[in-house]
């Protein structure tokens, strides 16, 4: 008995030691492979003399092929629900084969994390300095990597290897974008330009509810209040129960107002008062100030607090874990969101074709205009770390995506395996005005003003598919995009209706009615921000939330302004003023 137990213990320990040793070996072979791969890379440099032609094109031609295989280590974020065709995986798929065929680049993934865990994983990489060759990081991570000196400049690699298309996308962002990706004149990252249209949060409203109650589309904040009140009190869904919500707002992880796209935020309402929280602006006398502490913001907050008190705004504002729930359940009449909110409502619309969501530029300001704050020129950065021997590979990999994405749609490859799931370093590289252009073409196409032959699809990757599908799904009249005028029973509907609603409904007001843009003077981070910003953000969020929810009087805004300035805000304003001269 005793012996057996001792033996068991000893065996366990032995197993630990053996397995420790075994895995040590495994990893040794791994590192050997890496060394071999690196050696290969070095060889290719050495081979320069022997086969100059082959290598030269690799380093200068955006689509040039390396003479010898080059291994690039990456990390990847993968949608945890992504499915793969038999025999394919993120590490072995058609896209990787194409990259290999075109450039002789072998992509090796050091790790693959879920998109939900990606940020944490990248932070861990930065903190432990175990970095892949090329990474796709957010603004905070990008700044940290710059600070820690983990990045190499890519000016030369980009100039000689980025395709004209990629260069044009990057230059479309202008100087504001250039400032964000440059340090001392050296380019440090390839940005993914933000779509201009994504910054604009318009009002999405249930047109069928408006019609049922005989109401007009609101224009001003006062109109909005009246409509919301009717939505709450007059049983727009006709079920005999007072269970409808006027305006749905941010969830417990959302923001009342933010820079750029902010689904379920109240940015449009703030903007109608001339208030732009979280934006750096010039005040009337030309001094730099912060939008959150401006007097206009106080007015907007007072109005929101009033609306909340009257029950026009969801009582669970800022408490809900998911604000889209009442929208999808058909219990809410109004929310604010960017053009892509069509994707949000698609499934519920397919199931309940009476839910007629339409987007309008509401509310207008006192001059009758719709104004929107605009986001930072980029929020995603592709960076090349110091240990990467082939910095030009970053541009090359993106070149291929830009050139061929359209043909992947045509060949059905995209439907089989979405590049946004598996293409290395994927970002949306569209013209900043892609959505506006798509709307324009689709509208003209439906009106019969143009045919598909007259469109140059080379710079508009998704447009061809959009045009084909809209023809099938859209019913007459072609200039009315009410949900009644779509054929939702077609087999193309589930996969495409979200995008088509997003463009034809979501982007429509932007194109038809136009809007004024307000840019922040500065989208970066100053020195003082690094240490004080989270505290100031908390101060703001707490004050705003308490005012709107009626737990603090509107006068607490003045205290907030004073505290904000005193606790580092003034220093930061001075710093921003210095940078944004």
């Amino acid at each position: 008995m005793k012996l057996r137990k001792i033996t068991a213990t000893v065996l366990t320990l032995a197993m630990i030691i053996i397995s420790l040793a075994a895995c040590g070996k495994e990893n040794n072979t791994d590192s050997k492979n890496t060394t071999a791969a690196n050696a290969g890379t070095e060889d290719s440099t050495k081979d320069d003399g022997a086969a100059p032609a082959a290598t030269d094109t690799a380093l200068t031609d955006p689509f040039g092929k390396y003479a010898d295989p080059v291994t690039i280590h990456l990390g990847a974020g993968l949608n945890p629900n992504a499915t793969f065709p038999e025999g394919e995986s993120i590490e072995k798929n058609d896209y990787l084969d194409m990259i290999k065929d075109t450039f002789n680049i072998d992509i090796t993934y050091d790790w693959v994390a879920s998109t939900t865990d990606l940020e944490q994983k990248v932070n861990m990489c930065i903190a432990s300095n175990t970095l892949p060759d090329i990474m796709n990081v957010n603004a905070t991570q990008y700044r940290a990597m710059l600070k820690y000196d983990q990045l190499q400049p890519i000016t030369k690699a980009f100039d000689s290897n980025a395709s004209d298309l990629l260069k044009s996308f990057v230059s479309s962002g202008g100087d504001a974008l250039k400032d964000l990706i440059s340090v001392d004149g050296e380019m440090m990252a390839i940005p993914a330009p933000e779509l201009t249209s994504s910054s604009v949060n318009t009002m999405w409203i249930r047109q069928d509810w408006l019609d049922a109650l005989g109401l007009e589309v609101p224009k001003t904040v006062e109109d909005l209040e009246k409509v919301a009140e009717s939505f709450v009190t007059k049983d727009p869904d006709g079920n005999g129960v007072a269970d409808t919500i006027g305006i749905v707002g941010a969830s417990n992880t959302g923001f009342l107002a933010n820079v750029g796209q902010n689904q379920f935020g109240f940015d449009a309402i703030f903007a109608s008062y001339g208030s732009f929280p979280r934006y750096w602006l010039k005040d009337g006398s030309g001094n730099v100030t912060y939008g959150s502490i401006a007097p206009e913001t106080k007015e907007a907050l007072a109005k929101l607090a009033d609306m909340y008190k009257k029950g026009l705004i969801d009582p669970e504002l800022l408490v809900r874990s998911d604000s889209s729930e009442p929208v999808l359940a058909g219990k809410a009449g109004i929310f604010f969101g960017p053009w892509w909110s069509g994707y949000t409502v698609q499934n519920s619309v397919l199931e309940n074709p009476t839910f007629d969501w339409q987007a309008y530029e509401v509310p207008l300001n006192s001059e009758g205009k719709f104004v929107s704050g605009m986001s930072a020129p980029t929020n995603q950065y592709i960076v090349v770390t110091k240990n990467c021997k082939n910095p030009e590979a970053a541009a090359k990999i993106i070149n291929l995506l830009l050139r061929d994405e359209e043909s992947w749609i045509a060949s059905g490859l995209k439907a089989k395996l979405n590049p946004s799931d598996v293409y290395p370093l994927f970002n949306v590289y569209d013209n900043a005005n892609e959505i506006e252009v798509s709307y324009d073409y689709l509208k003209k196409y439906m009106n019969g003003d143009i045919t598909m032959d007259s469109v140059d699809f080379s710079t508009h990757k998704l447009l061809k598919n959009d045009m084909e599908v809209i023809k099938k799904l859209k019913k007459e009249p072609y200039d009315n995009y009410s949900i009644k005028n779509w054929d939702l029973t077609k087999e193309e509907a589930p996969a495409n209706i979200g995008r088509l609603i997003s463009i034809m409904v979501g982007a429509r007001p932007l194109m038809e009615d136009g809007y004024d843009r307000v840019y922040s003077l500065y989208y970066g981070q100053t020195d003082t921000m690094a240490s004080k910003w989270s505290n100031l953000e908390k101060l703001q969020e707490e004050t705003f939330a308490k005012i709107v929810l009626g737990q603090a009087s509107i006068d607490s805004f003045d205290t907030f302004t004073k505290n904000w300035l005193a606790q580092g805000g003034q220093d930061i304003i001075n710093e921003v003023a210095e940078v944004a001269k």
Partner: protein
Amino acid sequence: MIEHQTLGSKIFDVINLIVLIVITLLCIIPLWYILCISLSNKTAVDAGIVSFWPVGFNLFSYERIMGEKAFFVSFWISIKRVVLGGIVGVGCILLVAYPLSKSIRQFPKRNLFMWILVFCMLFNGGTVPWYLTMKNYHLIDNIWGLVLAGSLPVFSVILVMNFFRNLPGALEEAAYVDGAGPWKTFFSIFIPLSKPVIATIVLFTIVGHWNEFFQGLVLSTKQANYPVQTYIQQMVVTTDFSTMNVEQIQQALKLNNKSLDAAKVFIAIIPILIIYPFLQKYFVTGITLGSVKE
């Protein structure tokens, strides 16, 4: 134990039962809710209208799980982790606890070791150094990484040690008189008498390994090596659209399936449901133990 039941005692029994049943019902809510979600129509779940009864009852989620190999791979990893972790953990806990249950007279250095344990229970160097250490041991993407990562469960050691200390010293003395050494005393007297506490720490160890998801995330470089709770966690964490591009938002909205996630959460609890009653048996057999108390 037959005794005369007073009226007050009887009333207490009934109230007691009612209170316990109410408590039980309160505790069944989350699991029932998850079950309802997993049996409901996806659109209804997204709209948040499912509460305590399935809406649009269907078994699609469970059918889909059957075809999802990756889920069962992660399930198997967790089972391996629990079994290996249970053996290593419980073995080490018992072996460390026994000497520490001795008095200073019997084992002069015990206090030193005890405080080292307490110190290690409270202090850690943070995630990054821990990750680097694991990497140096080559325990990334390795089942032993998951088994050993948590280090010695000091809380359980203290629990067992206290239990050992409360066992009657007379038994031990008798064993020594018979010429038994510490190993024999440990295995033939202490272990058989400690079934309830062993069952407790077996449970704690198993549950600890089964529930843990953060280490699984840090110590794996791909989904294929995730234990089941890490696998589930990555599905259920709220997606932050603010940092995603349009294509990713579109994919997330299209592929996201709360009903399927709920089914996975539910299935991942089943092993726990099975193992607990099995261990409960040992809580009952421990009852004879008290008869030899000092």
